[in-house]
């Protein structure tokens, strides 16, 4: 049984112009020790997906199972229990920390809310956590503004780890950081996964990072999952035209083996009241009349899902 199972998850936002389909019928499973990468352009709903799974925002429709238990509509008590196992690391290490709380207060807060440990135990635990994420003791009483982005993100990681969760949503945790610092944080997250068997849902727009860190990758377009496959398989054999274009746009830091770019015309269309057919149709170079029909997610090879009626013809 998978640790996390998401079935037909939907999140719509009401808007003056109509219904904004931020997450539209997404299903997946995630096991311990595994990382699911979620990629897509800004506005495709990847952050909303992460937040909806954690129940930071209410679900419009669909179900979320954690350890076999339906947590789609949790009571206050169930939600509290759920949060012990599910945490999040936010994108912006500048905005996600309370500027008036010191490093140790920030990391201690989840422990305080949990209320299981004594004060002395909590202090010991915070020390331990700071050590785990590589923050020196001398920063214990520092405030976020005194620290650089990399160290702030380490606080975010320590805070997420405080309650020993099994599952962490990582919402672009390294995109605000410089490459040398980014590599430090990614290594830290991989080490922690190995030690603790954590499952990550890694939301990002950086495709080189996602390839490196993920077991499976889901590609999202306007709220829908258009393709999902094991990481290597997706990069070797992308089947959806959108995935193909997305992968070809990755800037490669090498001057050899440069690939032909597929330049997509236009930009994301509006996710408000989308038409039933393929949402990528207007930008797709393989679009055909049958694309106006609703696209069905198929599994042409084991564990490789794609939602494109023309994927076997191109």
């Amino acid at each position, binding site marked *: 049984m998978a640790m996390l199972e998401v079935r037909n998850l939907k999140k719509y936002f009401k808007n003056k112009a109509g219904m904004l389909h931020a997450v539209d019928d997404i299903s997946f499973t995630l096991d311990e020790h595994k990382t699911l990468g979620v990629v897509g352009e800004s506005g495709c709903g990847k952050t909303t997906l992460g937040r909806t799974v954690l129940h930071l925002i209410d679900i419009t429709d669909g179900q979320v199972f954690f350890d076999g238990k339906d947590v789609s509509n949790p009571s206050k008590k169930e939600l509290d229990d759920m949060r012990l196992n599910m945490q999040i690391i936010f994108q912006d290490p500048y905005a996600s920390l309370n500027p008036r709380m010191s490093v140790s207060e920030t990391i201690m807060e989840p422990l305080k809310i949990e209320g299981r440990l004594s004060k002395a135990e909590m202090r010991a635990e915070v020390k331990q956590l700071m050590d785990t994420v590589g923050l020196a003791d001398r920063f214990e009483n520092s405030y976020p503004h005194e620290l650089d982005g990399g160290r702030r993100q380490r606080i975010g990681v320590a805070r997420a780890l405080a309650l020993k969760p099994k599952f962490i949503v990582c919402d672009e945790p390294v995109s605000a950081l410089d490459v040398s610092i980014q590599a430090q944080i*990614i290594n830290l997250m991989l080490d922690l996964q190995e030690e603790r068997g954590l499952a990550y849902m890694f939301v990002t727009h950086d495709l080189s990072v996602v390839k*490196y860190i993920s077991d499976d990758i889901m590609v999202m377009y306007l709220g829908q999952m258009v393709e999902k496959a094991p990481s290597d398989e997706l990069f070797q054999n992308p089947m959806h035209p959108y995935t193909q274009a*997305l992968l070809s746009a*990755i800037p490669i830091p090498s001057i050899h083996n440069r690939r032909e770019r597929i330049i997509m015309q236009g930009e994301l269309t509006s996710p408000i009241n989308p038409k039933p057919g393929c949402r990528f149709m207007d930008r797709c170079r393989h679009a055909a009349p049958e694309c106006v029909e609703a696209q069905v997610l198929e599994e042409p090879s084991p564990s490789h899902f794609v939602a494109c009626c023309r994927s076997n013809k191109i």
Partner: protein
Amino acid sequence: MDENILEINDLVVEYHTDDAVIHAVNGLNLTVKRKETIGLVGETGAGKTTIARAIMRILQTPPAKFCGGTILFEGQDIMKMTEQQMRKIRGDKIAMIFQDPMTALNPIEKVGYQIAEAIGLHNKVSRAEAEIKACDMLEMVGIRSERYSEFPHQFSGGMKQRVVIAMALACNPILLLADEPTTALDVTIQAQVLEVMKSLKEKLDTSVIMITHDLGVVADICDSVAVVYAGEIVEYGTLEQIFDYPTHPYTLGLFNSLPKLDMTEPRLKPIKGLMPDPTNLPQGCKFHDRCPDATEQCAIDPPGMAEIAPGHLVKCFPKGGE
């Protein structure tokens, strides 16, 4: 082709605040040839933006202070120009694309007018002629000229950045300073914008200084590369020299930090430590405390620029040479 249009010699820029002096640019030398695209690569706080703003002379003084060096643009020292002379050059011969397209445009002016304004300021043309030229520029960056009268909020991020590019190129500048022009954009839109920039610089014979932290962008668009660390150029060479024979330990560290698509190692190899504090730069080589190959000498003497191959400069002591 080999004519230098910009020569920066020993440029030093500091920021003076109440309690500290920030050493942003420390003795920088750089030349830009006609039609050349040079990449200025480095991490946050390396001084890349300060360099660009110094060339445009749009640094706010104070707190910024020019403490030495010359910036020769077509043989004339920009530092010695009057503000009036500078205003003629700015936007006409030297133009700049800013990092954030969301804040670079005036939200209450039509986008077309914002382009026409620059044309009208620098050329003796009528309003109608400026408008026609502005429409041409919009078409050139792939925006229909019917959208002349729309406002910035009606455009997406990628479109706004194209408007900014159209504005910067409207007067056929000799030198274009592009400060992280694609950093705020998605990879797909980044690819579109880079294509536009590539075709336009060909068409208009513009030299470009491309400021970025993304080595992928550099590989795509640049002819030569300068790697900047703590306000200095630590390595300089052609695209091939930097990508095939990176030599400075910092350049190597940057390449090793990147996850590569064909990578099989279980862990990345980050550069240890952090950027040095610019108010308190280390003695000797500024990279020595993060450098895996540092020797005692590195902590005492700053290394000079050494030419290890024709045109390939590295600011590091030769390995095993002391």
